[in-house]
């Protein structure tokens, strides 16, 4: 009987042995963490899957602009046999080109914005004095950078270019907090760009000059992005200042003489960590096969290909012969089928040179562009030099720099923005698609220079204005 009572007491002890609060506070899933420390917020931003995109996985930057650009074409056979109807529509700028389902081009950008907002909201709720202020500022600056980067990329595809008076209402929705019950509405184009530049100007002060991880933003990358944004806004003074500020920190260039032009992937080895790369990012494409951009199917515009002279090492480093005819892209800094669309010094040099040319600083522009070209041409050639006839004339030089920009930055996700910008300046660039007997044309400043917001998104926000057609 005594034993029995002891057992009884033992059981009751078991019932009340542990504290009730502790028992009910046990984590249901041990891996769950409520982000509260600077370490947690840094970890959210270091999720390169969300913040930069994974090469050959799910990327970040919309590829719709590149798909609509004129650097490549598809043969009718490939167009018919490889593309889904959605991508055929994007390729031919169909006025109805729209996805009814989730479209990564939209979703991934806003996912990145949301993650940045979680960090920004979380940082602002931290109690002052409980953390290392310099680190706090740095993480906040990084979150602002990622958000501005995502906004800018979305704006290139789903909003109209800066400065177009008629299209001013059609900016992108600006998500500035992590509240998931917020009502979504579009901002105007000026508001969109004001937010982007404000965030970047705010961020640039607190970022470290450089970062050993190219997934993380740095001062050099932030100035480079500012230069890219101001250039797209045609604010050449500010773009030049930003480009200079970026190059003052990092101005390295990779000498293409060191690359093997005969390799399948010439950037293999030097690759994505090369001296030029400031910040990594990649297109959203998940499967290289269904996108018209796939390096297996896209052929390089023949005029563009011809514009690379024999001594231009890029001709071999960038392209391979396609069957039965034409040329294909070999792939980017990633040394794979994935596209690099991040920030690199070559772009900054080109922004600098273009601004200098535009602002009449002709000799400076020549110096800048030659510094880049020297690293792109065969060592024994002096063709990298700007021909004297061009070097003296501002307009010719500007055109020369812009052509150089197109050659250097092919498949870097910039051509679409450039087309929009050049047309805003009155260049009247008309681009075509030829498929058998069918010819499709995209006129300057066409309404189709902004893609339709996916109908799934419109379905959730019926009051929101769709891009006009």
């Amino acid at each position, binding site marked *: 009987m005594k034993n*029995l009572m002891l057992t*009884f007491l033992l*059981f*009751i002890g*078991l*019932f*009340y042995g542990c504290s*009730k609060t502790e028992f009910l*506070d*046990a984590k*249901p*899933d*041990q*891996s*769950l*963490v*409520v982000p509260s420390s600077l370490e947690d917020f840094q*970890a*959210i931003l*270091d*999720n*390169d*899957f*969300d913040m930069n995109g*994974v*090469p*050959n996985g799910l990327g970040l930057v919309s590829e719709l602009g590149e798909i609509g650009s004129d650097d490549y074409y598809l043969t009718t*056979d490939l167009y*018919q*046999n490889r593309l*889904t*109807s*959605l991508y*055929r529509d994007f390729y031919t700028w169909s006025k*109805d080109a729209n996805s*009814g*389902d*989730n479209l990564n081009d*939209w979703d991934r950008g*806003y*996912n990145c914005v*949301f*993650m940045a*907002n*979680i960090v920004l909201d979380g940082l602002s709720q931290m109690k002052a004095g409980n953390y290392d202020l310099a680190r706090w500022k740095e993480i906040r600056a990084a979150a602002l950078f990622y958000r501005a980067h995502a906004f800018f990329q979305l704006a290139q595809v789903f909003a109209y270019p800066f400065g177009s008076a008629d299209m001013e209402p059609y900016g992108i929705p600006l*998500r500035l907090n*992590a509240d*998931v019950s917020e009502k*979504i509405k579009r901002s105007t184009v000026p508001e969109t760009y004001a937010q982007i530049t404000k965030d970047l100007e705010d961020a640039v002060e607190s970022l470290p000059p450089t970062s050993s*991880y190219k997934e993380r933003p740095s001062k050099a990358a932030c100035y480079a992005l500012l230069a890219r944004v101001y250039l797209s806004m045609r604010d050449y003074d500010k773009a030049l200042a930003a480009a200079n500020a970026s190059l003052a920190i990092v101005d390295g260039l990779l000498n293409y003489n060191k690359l093997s032009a005969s390799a399948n992937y010439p950037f293999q080895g030097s690759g994505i960590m090369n001296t030029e790369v400031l910040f990594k990012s990649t297109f959203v494409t998940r499967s290289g096969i269904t996108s018209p951009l796939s390096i297996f199917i896209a052929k390089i515009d023949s005029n563009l290909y011809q514009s690379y002279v024999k001594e231009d090492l890029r001709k071999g480093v960038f392209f391979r012969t*396609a*069957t039965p005819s034409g040329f294909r892209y070999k*792939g980017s800094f990633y040394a794979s*089928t994935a596209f690099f669309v991040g920030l690199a010094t070559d772009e900054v040099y080109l922004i600098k040179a273009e601004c200098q040319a535009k602002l009449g600083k002709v000799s400076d522009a020549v110096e800048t562009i030659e510094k880049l070209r020297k690293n792109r041409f065969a060592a024994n050639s002096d063709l990298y030099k700007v021909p004297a006839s061009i070097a003296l004339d501002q307009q010719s030089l500007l055109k020369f720099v812009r052509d150089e920009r197109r050659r250097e930055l092919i498949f870097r996700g910039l051509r679409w923005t450039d087309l929009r910008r050049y047309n805003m300046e009155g260049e009247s660039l008309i681009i075509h698609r030829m498929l058998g007997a069918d010819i499709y044309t995209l006129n300057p400043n066409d309404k189709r220079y902004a893609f339709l917001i996916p*109908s*799934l*998104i419109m*379905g*959730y*926000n019926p009051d929101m204005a769709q891009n006009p057609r």
Partner: protein
Amino acid sequence: MKILVYIIIAMLGMVSQAYAQKILNGRVTNIKGQALLHTTVRNLTSNSATSTDSDGKFSIAANPKDSIRIMILGYEPQTMATKDWPADGIIRLASKIVMLEDVEVVHTGFQRLRKDQITGSVDVISEKMLNRTTGTNILSRIEGLSPGIQFNKGDAAETDAFLIRGRSTISAEAKPLIVVDDFPYEGDISQINPSDVASVSILKDAASASIWGARAGNGVIVIKTKQGLSDKLKIDFKSDFTLQNKPDLNNLNWIRSADMIEFEKLRFAQGAYDNLLNGPYYLTPITPVVELLFQKRNNPNDATIDAQIEQMKINDVRKDMAQYLYRQRFRRQYHVAISGRSKQVSHMTSVGYFKELSNLRGTADNRLTIRTNNTFRLSPIIELSHNLQYTHTKQQANANPGYLIMDNREIYPYASLVGSDGSPKNVYLNHPKAYLDTVGAGHLKDWSFNPVRDLNTVDNKVAGSNLTDNIALAVKPITDLSVSLRYQYQIGSDGNDNHYKSDSYLVRRLSNQYAYKKNGNWTSAIPEGGILDFNESTLQSHQGRLQLDYNKRINADMRLDAIAGYEIRSKIEQGKYGRYYGYVDDRMSVVRDVDYITNFTLLSNGVLAKVPAVSGVNKRTDNFLSWFGNAVVSYKDQIYISGSVRKDEANLFGVETNAKGTPFWSAGLRYETGLLGRLALRASYGVNGNISRMATAMTTIQYISYTISGLPAATLNSPPNKSLRWEKINTANFGADFSVFKNRLSGSLDYYLKNGRDLLSQAPMDPTLGITSFFGNVASMDGHGLDLTLQSRNLESVVTWITFLNLSYTNSKVKKYLMPKSVSPMPYLRNSGISPLEGKPLYAVFSYPWKGLDPTNGNPQGIANGEVSEDYKSILNNTRIEDMVYNGPMQSPWYGSLRNEWTYKNVGLSVNLSFKFGGYFRTSSFFSSTLLAGFSGHADYAKRWQAAGDELKTDVPSLDLTRNSDRDQFYKSSAILVQKSDNIRVEDILLYYSLLPETTRRWGIQNARFFAQVQSPNWAWIGNNMGVDPYFNNVPKSRPTYVFGISFTF
């Protein structure tokens, strides 16, 4: 709490008082010796009364001249003089009517109650009924035996395999709670041997289930295992053998070989395959026919090539698959149990084993169960019981995906898996043969995929064991009160070792993909040897309960059965998984240094990738603290009033402690009207709950290690949700139990309303908000339904004939949904995920209006902007959800079963039919873009529109070579492909023969029974004009299962 301890100690001290009076002791049972609990025992002389306890025992004060009357509903009352009192005290009551079932005792997991004390809706399935079929999982045996339990089949099984009274939650756990011997069973229910089960009680409404509180929202299934009942030592032996032929692969609607070949010829002539010859990566395989066509192009005069192609037209890969990948299923099952009961001890020990060789070659399933249940009556007031169960399971899976050949890819219909010489053949599903034969110039591993040869190159084993130890101590310090303490410990572990041998396709392919040239020599980042993927998990749970039972006969007419208690439950699951490269089993070695850091450019497709690293750890904790109470008051065995309360607290994440708990309650009434043969009316109302551990109130992240940068990083687990709360399910139940025509026809009818509030949902969201779905209390649902059960004894002579009917209707609709709703039908057409829509069932089938085929080109026609249209883009983008055809629910709202049983002397026959009505499903068809993209096609290709006029004969669109996926998307989701899933089918036919007692007794056998059964023969009436059996929608159709069995009792 200390006070409680003193009370218990004080009670223990009171024990001796119980024996001070002179009393009559007895135990009331039915003829079979089963206890009749809560039976009224009345001293007619003194007019005092008592009732039997849950073991049928009672004691009553009496003088020698008094007479005692023992009465219970459904049994002949017995009046006996005290002087005639039997020596063993056992009083056996004869049942008043021919009872269809043994006495129905409901186990709620807390209490044993007579079924006619229940105010809510409860079904009890007896051992006899559970043994009608022979499935190794107890759940499969209750199918069709109780109304309101729905087993979804075919496509609908993808939604919920199994529900009680429809789905009452959106994203939280929808499965009913399963209780085994008083405690929720935390492991896999397939670990319970159905032969050890004595009864299954199904608690459907709030009054019966709310004692289970937070987990009762979906209904509760209470399983009670067998105890020793017989006074004599009893040995039961059972065995059965199951045979089932290979499934019918012709039910796969694959394109005919001849059609496929003609199609490929057409495409070849158009030059569609020419591009496949361009490198450097060959990601599209070239089928044998296309390969031959290329050969033919170079040798136009070679007639043997044509002959080879013609030869392939008669191939049917399904035949080869059936022959080489499938086999006859065979299962044998044994069960031995020894049991007995004496005054002090009830005991039962059993051993069960089954081994099954499944339909897929190389796959097998084993289970060993050992159970012992003992009850020790230590003194008249102390009872100790101990149940112990051990289960060991082992499954062998290997590398046989059956008809899904590889990575769920379909295969060209004319493939032959084995050559005419009997040697297994390669098939090319990832890359063309020419590429695989030449890449690496002989320095790589064999890259070919050979389904038959490779069958035994993967050794995939899952072994699990589980031990459940259950101890209960009950003390009855005073006559009406019992204090019990129960404790259950459960520990289980599962281990999956998946060994890809070095010659397996996975290892060879991976090794080749990661092959590269180093200093001029080929090497691979994947080490030599095999790959071992392991996944180990353990489960540990403690459950304890302190309970007071108060069973008091208040006066001659009124009786109270009440319980109150406290419960604690903690479950911890832990797991780890990982991968070893270079695993060699015969010398037990692995390669430690694998380069997981470098990004390699894959040889096969130029994609940048690291060596796949598979590893992780996890831990989950489920803690509950609960108070509960339940009481039933009965008056004159005529009116019953019940009430229950329960408060649950759980370790919800990020919720303030005071918000972690929620109270649940119920109330019910039962009235025996005394009308007809019998008519009892019931009504109950109550609130149950449900919770999901997926939900967290704060923003949560999880650390990950697989970034490109190599930096530690975190991924978002859930956005903040400050208003997270428990789901509540309100149920009202109105029922009647009746019998008429001298009990010839009896049954019960229940009508219920089941409304879910604050339902948790994983809701699709506007991606602009940053996430594509959100988990929160965002919906409410209203449901109602009917459960009818009828038993009719049609013949009662030498031949008996009984008919059983179960009929259920369940209708539940989303009432409110607070998340952004898409006006586009897209989210509602997806196969996966749930997109609630107000006014519709959770799983609703929508489709685009169908306007037939265009007579000029065979294009499918829909409606765009109000007009008949072939502008598919416009149809897909502009059709709003309200313009869609709403076909109906995916889960059939009407379902049930009809069973007829005949006996003649010692031979019995039983036929069980099931039926389902009112559900819908999408059939598959031929989609041009799918055929163009690969080499899988649908048999409807043969029925496609080909010339004007065909539109009158067919609804299958013409072949479209423009790869217009919008056209297919429209057709796939159009009304023409939605069909009713109505069907009536034979579930099983059972024939049994029992040896006559005279015969068996001579051999020392009490009982011997032989049976033969055909299960799921799929003899069915199908309610759709396409003739597609909704249970087998474009998947192999299973063939009838034959079972032969014997059982002996010694």
